[in-house]
């Protein structure tokens, strides 16, 4: 589904990704963890070409992202941002119908039905006419997930989806993500939520200084961390 081959990327002379290779099969849920500045977000943003790597290749659903029609292929990978990035001048329903209407040319009625079904799925069926500023952070993020799902993506990318939320709102967003994973969605999740990683991920990837330092099936990853840098990181995030 996703193949990342030795990609590198620098910002202002600093290497944020250094020869990263990774693959993801259909239905897999991979959680990427690591200290801030380790390149996790950049790796995620390379998958849907929000960033272009300087070296290496990214393949998504059999297409090379360097040569693919980005406008088309971007909607294959739905993205959820830390800051939600809902469109503030549109109602919740319009946020969801914009993509299907404009990009896929779906008739308005069909787009609205789809949007309502998705809002129901994320538990916000009663908020379709609300505007983003009227919603809590957790609700906004669930709308953002529904907006991405409206494009019927094959992969969902989550960039620290709960980092901007008050602690009591994190659970409702993770619950939606957990449900998606159970339905078989292919997911890449950058997060600091170790509980979520443990219970939902098939595989965990640890990044540090632009490299993948360790990865493995979830159980083994947490119970027998192989790399000293990972042991150190886990002891910090798990014991607080």
């Amino acid at each position: 589904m996703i193949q990342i081959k030795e990609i590198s990327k620098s910002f202002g002379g600093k290497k944020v990704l250094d020869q990263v290779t990774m693959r993801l099969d259909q239905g897999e849920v991979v959680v990427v963890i690591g200290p801030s500045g380790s390149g996790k977000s950049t790796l995620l943003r390379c998958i849907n070409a929000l960033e272009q790597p300087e070296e290496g290749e990214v393949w998504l659903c059999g297409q090379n992202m360097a040569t693919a029609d980005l406008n088309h292929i971007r909607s294959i990978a739905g993205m959820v941002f830390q800051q939600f990035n809902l469109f503030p001048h549109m109602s919740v329903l319009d946020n969801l119908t914009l993509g299907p209407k404009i990009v896929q040319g779906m008739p308005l009625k069909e787009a609205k039905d789809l949007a309502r079904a998705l809002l129901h799925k994320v538990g916000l069926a009663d908020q379709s006419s609300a505007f983003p500023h009227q919603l809590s952070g957790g609700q906004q993020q669930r709308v953002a997930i529904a907006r991405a799902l409206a494009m019927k993506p094959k992969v969902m990318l989550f960039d620290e989806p709960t980092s901007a939320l008050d602690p009591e709102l994190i659970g409702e967003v993770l619950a939606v993500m957990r449900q998606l994973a159970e339905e078989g969605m292919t997911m890449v999740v950058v997060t600091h939520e170790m509980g979520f990683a443990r219970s939902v991920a098939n595989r965990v990837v640890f990044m540090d200084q632009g490299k993948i330092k360790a990865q493995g099936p979830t159980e083994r990853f947490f119970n027998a961390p192989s790399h000293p840098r990972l042991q150190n990181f886990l002891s910090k995030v798990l014991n607080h």
Partner: protein
Amino acid sequence: MTSFQFDASVMLETLPLLMEGARLTLWVTLLGCFFGFLFGVAAGVSRSLDSPWARRLAGIYIELIRGTPLMVQVMFLYFGLPLILGLRFPPLTAGVVAIALNSGAYIAEVARGAIAEVAKGQMEAARCIGLTQAQALRFVIWPQAFRAMIPPLGNQFVISLKDTSLLVVIGVGELTRSGQEVIAVNFRAFEVWLTVALLYLCLTLGISLSLRFLEKKYKLVQ
């Protein structure tokens, strides 16, 4: 020291004539700002595009206009250009074009600033659901940027309205010109210029108030 006697009745008597001029001033301003808005948005959006050629072209236009006095632009359009083109626009047309080109350059900077103000995350979110850059600008960035543009836009419209008084040099019969013509007949400079000033004030206040109304109407809660 002087035998000057203020005569308010002069103000009332000349008002109908001056109103004619004020009407033309308003028309030149509205037309000029309408086309200026179109030029400005086109140039401002071009400045925000990925294409370096679009950015450069818009940049040249903006610098050219902002770096030269409006008076010179007006004279160049009316007296200079016809020598090359071989045809002369009527003064009114030249005046509207000058105001449009001039306000367009300033509005371009307003538009560019407003687009930049809409967070980068909005463009990314729009691109992620598959919108092209043009679609994202149209459906996501522009509606937000337009709201941010309203207050500075009102400012520019007021400036452009006052700028139309410069069109006196090419003989457009706007408010300032009407004032001159009335004084040539009755020599009541004090009363006439006072009336002209008050009429300008009414017009600029009208613009400010309507823009403030628009601003309230389209206010966006973040």
